């Protein structure tokens, strides 16, 4: 079984982002970048499937600037076999390269690579769209199982437990299929130093997004990026009685 894992390079989840002074976007320079946390979980799941003997090859792909190859090396240090970097100089968070374009580019790569399973993050923590996996599934006509918290492959199908608003839903999808990961699917490993060294020698293909036959004119024009309404800190109260008094007589919420 061959697994295809699309990943994204994003501002690290611990960083408090800065809005550019002209409100044209989020400052990306001199900011710590990492593999999108949900995608890291997708890589880990693929590696576990390989370690259990179910998968034979893991291909990771990312679309982004030259530097995005860092996240491919990270994924290869975790256990992916090879990487594909599709380069673009356009912004990949807001205002330029959009989920629909990404899904079309991935579809084209998948038609060449012919994987049995695609595992990817449910959303990227920059644009928070939560779209690409579902779009890819619709474009390919492959079944989808999103927001996975458990994945069990057996024969030509995969049973997936999904985290949904009401609780947990279990689906069985026929492969090839698209799965997207939720937080509790697994805990990604740290790559060991020898594996980081080994990853540097693993094959990495570089392609240009412009060479794909895609219309890359954004459908959504980014008008501005602004601070959210600021919430002022309130007051500290002394004790439970004071709190109840405030809630009853000032906020009037109880």
């Amino acid at each position, binding site marked *: 079984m061959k697994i295809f894992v699309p990943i994204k390079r994003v501002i690290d989840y611990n960083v408090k982002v800065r809005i550019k002074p002209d409100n044209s976007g989020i400052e990306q320079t001199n900011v710590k970048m990492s593999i999108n946390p949900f995608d890291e979980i997708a890589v880990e799941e693929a590696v576990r499937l390989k370690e259990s003997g179910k998968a034979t090859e893991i291909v990771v792909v990312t679309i982004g600037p030259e530097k995005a190859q860092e996240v491919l090396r990270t994924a290869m240090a975790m256990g992916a076999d090879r990487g594909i970097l599709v380069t673009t100089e356009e912004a990949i968070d807001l205002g330029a390269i959009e989920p629909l374009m990404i899904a079309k580019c991935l579809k084209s790569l998948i038609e060449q690579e012919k994987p049995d399973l695609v595992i990817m993050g449910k959303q990227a923590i920059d644009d*928070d769209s939560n779209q690409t996996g579902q779009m890819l599934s619709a474009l390919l006509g492959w*079944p989808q199982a999103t927001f996975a918290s458990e994945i069990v492959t057996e024969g030509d199908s995969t049973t997936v437990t999904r985290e949904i608003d009401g609780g947990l839903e279990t689906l069985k999808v026929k492969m090839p299929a698209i799965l997207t990961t939720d937080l509790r699917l697994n805990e990604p490993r740290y790559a060991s130093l020898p594996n980081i060294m080994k990853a540097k020698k693993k094959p990495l293909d570089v392609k240009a997004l412009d060479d794909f036959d895609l219309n890359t004119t954004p459908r959504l*024009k980014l008008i501005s990026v602004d601070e959210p309404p600021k919430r002022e800190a309130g007051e500290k109260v002394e004790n439970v009685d004071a709190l109840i008094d405030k809630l009853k007589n000032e906020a009037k*919420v109880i």
Partner: protein
Amino acid sequence: MSILVIAEHDNEELKPSTLNVVTAAKEFGEAIDILVMGENCQKVSKQAASIQNINKVYCMSDAQLKNHLAEPLTAGTMQIVKGDSYKYIMSPASTFGKNLLPRISALLDVQQISDVTEVVSASSFKRPVYGGQAIATVESNDDVKVITVRVTAFDAAEAEGGQAQVTEVAFNPTEDFGSTFVRLEVAQSERPELTGAARVVSGGRALGSKENFKMIEDLADKLGAAIGASRAAVDAGYVPNDYQVGQTGKVVAPELYIAVGISGAIQHLAGMKDSKTIVAINKDEDAPIFQIADYGLVGDLFDILPELTEKL
């Protein structure tokens, strides 16, 4: 030239989230149709038809639609969309809408606008990005706008008094979907549903155990509140996953949000900072949660919680 709202329901009841989407849809000032897909969903269709100012309701009832799997729902929606010229297709930004709408968007070759919190004009919208650390204003140049709506950003539409006509439509899929439903484990609870609740009491890792989380339940029951949790509390196994409030969990905006033993990571704040009144109870007086709380109480939650529950 109108709007199609895809209803969220469980074949028995229309979910309140659909009412919030209708309010967002009204901002466009055009006729609103509602599509109800499921099995034996005639009762739900009637509920949809009684929402005020609805043009018409499509009821598509079929065994293949019973469990709301994304692939048959996509086929059903495309069937309706192809027969009409909708300018807007909308659904709640719940796991239901998130699972379904990007598929429709891809098949229509348009770029979906996720998690809309404000309709600025007929083609421009505000949506939170970077876990709510910034608000993006975007303008769509697609002919059809596919939109998921953040339900907490819009009031519920009036659920009674409308008399829209219900049209039954047969489901005619042409493809094999490749996915089958196995089971659904729904947490049974008498408490209000988290995303729509007027009051929410949330607990964090500081509760220390599943047993101690009972103190959160006691306070919630006293207040008639829903229960939420931080990611840390869910990861630690104190409560099920569907309690999680935050960037990747549920977004809530109740009248009263009480955060107990939650330090206030950015990812948690993204899910609750639009609450009207926020109370924080934490023993660390420098916890970031106090920076957004209206009322902060510094102290040991194991003393404060029982006292608060008793005195309310």
